[in-house]
């Protein structure tokens, strides 16, 4: 049986980070040196796991309600849409996030930053996009934190986002940043993306309409996954 596979579109390499970027030291021993081999999409790449749909709990998308008390820090609402690169919504896809607390400390055994843990904050959340690709998360603004990449190195405030999309080809893990963060200019992870406009797409936008009076600041963060090539004509 002949199977017609409509492939996903390829990335512009300038819009993705360089894999070897010595300013980010960990890449030196972990980045492949051989060129990647172009893999024409088959059924293996255009399918992918349908995962995590059944076990999303009520407080998973509100990181401020996962403990007995409220976490310290600035409450923020992050709202956006997950689209494909043709502008079509990506519905019912899993979105997982993790982040530091307001003091810039992760609840993780390998984080030894001398900043306090917050007993009321775990820093992990998950949700599904709705039928229009929309999602909303409530959390606190993560703090910046130092890391040992270079002298006086600090990561800008960020939230990690993990998405599956519809296929093996659409898997994406990225980071969301906050507007006006002076540390972005010094951050090799952010700066590893060659194209400036592409970098800007990882910076959320302050949004007064999402902002809730007397309660929380609102930020908009849309995520664009790869879409498919136009359907080929039947010969």
């Amino acid at each position, binding site marked *: 049986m002949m199977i017609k596979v409509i492939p996903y579109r390829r*990335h512009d390499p300038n*819009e993705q980070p360089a894999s070897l970027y010595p300013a980010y030291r960990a890449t030196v021993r972990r980045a492949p*040196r051989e060129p990647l081999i172009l893999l024409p999409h*088959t059924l293996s790449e255009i399918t992918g*796991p349908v995962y995590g749909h059944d076990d999303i709990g009520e407080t998973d998308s509100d990181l401020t309600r996962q403990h007995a008390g409220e976490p310290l820090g600035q409450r923020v609402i992050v709202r956006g849409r997950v689209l494909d690169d043709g502008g079509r919504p990506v519905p019912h896809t899993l979105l997982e996030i993790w982040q530091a607390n307001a003091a810039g400390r*992760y609840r*993780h055994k390998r984080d030894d930053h001398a900043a306090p843990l917050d007993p009321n904050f775990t820093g992990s959340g998950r949700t599904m996009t709705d039928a229009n690709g929309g999602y909303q998360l409530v959390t606190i603004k993560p703090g910046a934190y130092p890391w040992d990449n270079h002298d006086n190195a600090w990561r800008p405030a960020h939230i990690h986002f993990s998405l599956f999309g519809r296929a093996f080809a659409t898997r*994406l893990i990225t980071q969301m940043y906050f507007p006006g963060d002076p540390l972005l200019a010094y951050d090799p992870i952010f700066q590893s993306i060659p194209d400036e406009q592409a970098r800007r797409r990882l910076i959320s936008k302050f949004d007064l309409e999402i902002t809730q009076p007397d309660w929380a600041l609102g930020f908009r963060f849309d995520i664009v996954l790869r879409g498919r090539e136009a359907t080929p004509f039947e010969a």
Partner: protein
Amino acid sequence: MRHNTDQAPSPSQTVGPYFHLGCTATQSVSCLAGPKAKGERVRLICRVLDGDGVPVNDSMIEIWQADSEGKYHHPDDPREKAVDPDCPGFGRLATDEHGISVFETIKPGRVPGNNGSLQAPHLNVSVFARGIMKRLATRIYFAEDRANPEDPILALVPEERRTTLMAKPDPHKDGAWRFDIHLCGEDETVFFDV
């Protein structure tokens, strides 16, 4: 080619050292095919090594595979045959202190390739870690499988590097296969532009 209405894709960023918090702390999946799944049982021992040959103890491995008949548990697999309900085909684990993740699964069947070809049994693998900017994609094939010489994707790989894509049977343990992922260095694994 991009059209006016098109959106530019979001760039990837590294998962960093703390991904366990959001991904594997509560959402690990070590079993891709339950005990009732049809097919030859496989215990897959994957190890991730850096360019110095040092085990990478802070990486995440994800695997996606077809069932024993080569059918994917996904609506975009158009073939009418039913998928094995005991083979969801997805796994993900963080590597341990030795850089190792162990998955329980079955050997997948042959999946159609393009232009009427048939692929050899393989698993689709993603590797994430601190220092990896963008998901590294590779494939696991089974060493000495009769179908390997016919596989259209292996044929794209220079012959001397194909061995990096082969899981090898563990001579001491029945059903166990070992697969080392060398991120870079002398035995660098073949990674694909997916």
